[in-house]
């Protein structure tokens, strides 16, 4: 699944560790999502969407949208 997490993080000038802290996950989790190695669970996807104040589908793209 493609996502814009890295772009959104850069726009806010946050490090991976900083974003991880805001999402209450590990830095490795943020890195894995950004590199497409991990699809977040629905609760985490909602936390990400709330943090960036955007709908989930504007952050994550499953290629069928």
């Amino acid at each position: 699944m493609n996502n814009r997490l890295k772009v959104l993080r850069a726009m806010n000038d946050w490090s991976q560790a900083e974003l991880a802290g805001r999402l209450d996950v590990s830095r490795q989790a943020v890195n894995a999502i950004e590199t497409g190695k991990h699809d977040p669970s629905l609760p985490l996807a909602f936390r990400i969407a709330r943090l960036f104040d955007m709908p989930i589908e504007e952050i994550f793209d499953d290629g069928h949208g």
Partner: protein
Amino acid sequence: MTKDSIMPKPAKGLYATRLVDLTFVIMGLGAAILLGLGDLPSQFPVADPEQVALAGPILLSSVILTGIATCLFHRIDRRGWDDYMGQVMSQSALIGMVTLILAGALSEFVALKWLGGSTQLPMIVGMIPMAALAWAIGYFFLRWRGTGQ
């Protein structure tokens, strides 16, 4: 506020990714060394023949009791580890279970067919039914209680 943040910080440290990585490195190397020793089971005394009948019930009740306890502790784990590690841990456990069962069966098959007898590794052979039963306990626990948070 998510359930993740309910756990106090010192306890959350137990679920740090690097600590889990290190644990798996030690566990993997330890298991590889133990298996490599080959004659490890011969170091253990054979049970008293009069007590052998108790071996099955002891083994079975041990798996059931520890299986139930593990299911309960797993709920605490799920609050502690984060999204990514949760998936890595559960999926690697699945791979590990299947590998254990298939590798045990394959090694016994090879030994029986070409070496003329069992591998005499009760640690491996005994682990197959134990793993299957433990897996079933975990499976039905999660079917009953669900996998969501």
